[in-house]
């Protein structure tokens, strides 16, 4: 890790399976090139529906069915197990507020929690959809006190921090998950990893 290599920003929301895949791939790629990855939480529901005024992708004609097929295919491409909890739907607030709370105290722990939570929901069919489930998960995997997790999920300071993070995402022109920001340049989607790799290897995108 050298001083002049800025960290890669990874914008995510737990509800996105593509975010889960991105979280795994970008950590690998960053490690190969001596970069850190900073995890930055955002909320797709706010970005897509409130700001872009679009329907959610699964509810979009034509794109919805395609996106489901593509999700399955992309998990296969990256060799990641797709075994979501329930029908895959993840109301993100309990999980992402807990991340935000941990991130305010200990970003390294927050990242470990994020990685484990992503895996639990998308690969291990573990329930992390409610405050109760998230508190139990955080206790079982990280030894966190469940009442502290409940308090964090309802803490106005945590809510504000998450809101500020979503605001920062919009400010930076981030609208999708995963979005990777490398030296100020935005890349949306796992399909851009080859571009990012070329940028990291050669310092330029040119063919």
């Amino acid at each position: 890790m050298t001083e002049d290599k800025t960290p890669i920003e990874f914008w995510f929301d737990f509800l996105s399976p593509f975010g889960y895949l991105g979280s795994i791939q970008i950590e690998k790629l960053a490690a190969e090139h001596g970069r850190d990855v900073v995890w930055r939480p955002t909320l797709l529901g706010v970005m897509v529906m409130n700001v872009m005024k679009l329907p959610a992708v699964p509810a979009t004609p034509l794109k919805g069915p395609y996106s489901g097929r593509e999700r399955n295919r992309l998990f296969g491409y990256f060799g990641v197990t797709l075994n979501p909890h329930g029908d895959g739907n993840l109301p993100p607030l309990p999980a992402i507020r807990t991340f935000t709370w941990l991130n305010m105290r200990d970003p390294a722990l927050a990242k470990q929690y994020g990685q484990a939570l992503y895996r639990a929901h998308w690969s291990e069919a573990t329930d992390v959809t409610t405050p109760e489930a998230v508190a139990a998960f955080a206790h079982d995997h990280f030894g966190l006190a469940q009442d502290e997790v409940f308090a964090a999920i309802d803490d106005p300071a945590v809510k504000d921090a998450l809101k500020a993070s979503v605001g920062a995402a919009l400010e930076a022109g981030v609208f999708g998950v995963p979005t990777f920001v490398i030296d100020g340049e935005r890349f949306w989607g796992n399909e851009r990893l080859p571009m990012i790799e070329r940028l990291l290897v050669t310092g330029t995108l040119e063919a």
Partner: protein
Amino acid sequence: MTDPIEFHFDFISPYALPGLVAIDRVAAKHGRRIEMHPMMLGISVGKAMGLPALIDTPLKGDYLMMDVPRAYRFHGVPFKPAVERFMTNPLIPHRLFCWMLAQDRERAEQAARAMLAANWSEGSDVSKLENALPHVLAAGFGEAEARAAPDDPAVKEDLKRRCETSIERGIFGSPTFIVDGEMFWGSDRTHIIDRWLETGGW
């Protein structure tokens, strides 16, 4: 299997040309042909999906303006768009393409490739008949018939039918690739198609 790779595109799509260049490379590697098909984003995105154009979508529009030149750089394709904010009316090149397809697919594709390259790499607005025509003639089609083609009701109907068929098949974006029945949307998916062809899919 040696079926061709279907390449569905709209002339107004800035990602069509880099997608074509990228899939050409993948197809050559695996000994596949490309088969070009017209589709219209105005019908799929606008009518079937009920969405605004990408360029008019908050946040995504700005991303697009930054991302498109990058896609050309990444695939080594010159970027000189005919119209600054990309919006051209694609009816003339699409109708010419349909008219040519009905006669000779190989020469029709030659002209379609030339029109795409002219519009996106050479700054020539092929939504205008005068700019589109030289590429049609260069592919060996007759001038008088070509000039009449965009107004021919049968040609209009053919384009409409092809667009409807593509929607029925679930195609909504440009470019879309169909490889042995599997649909891939986006010029940035060609490395995944490469793996798909290598392994026979998964």
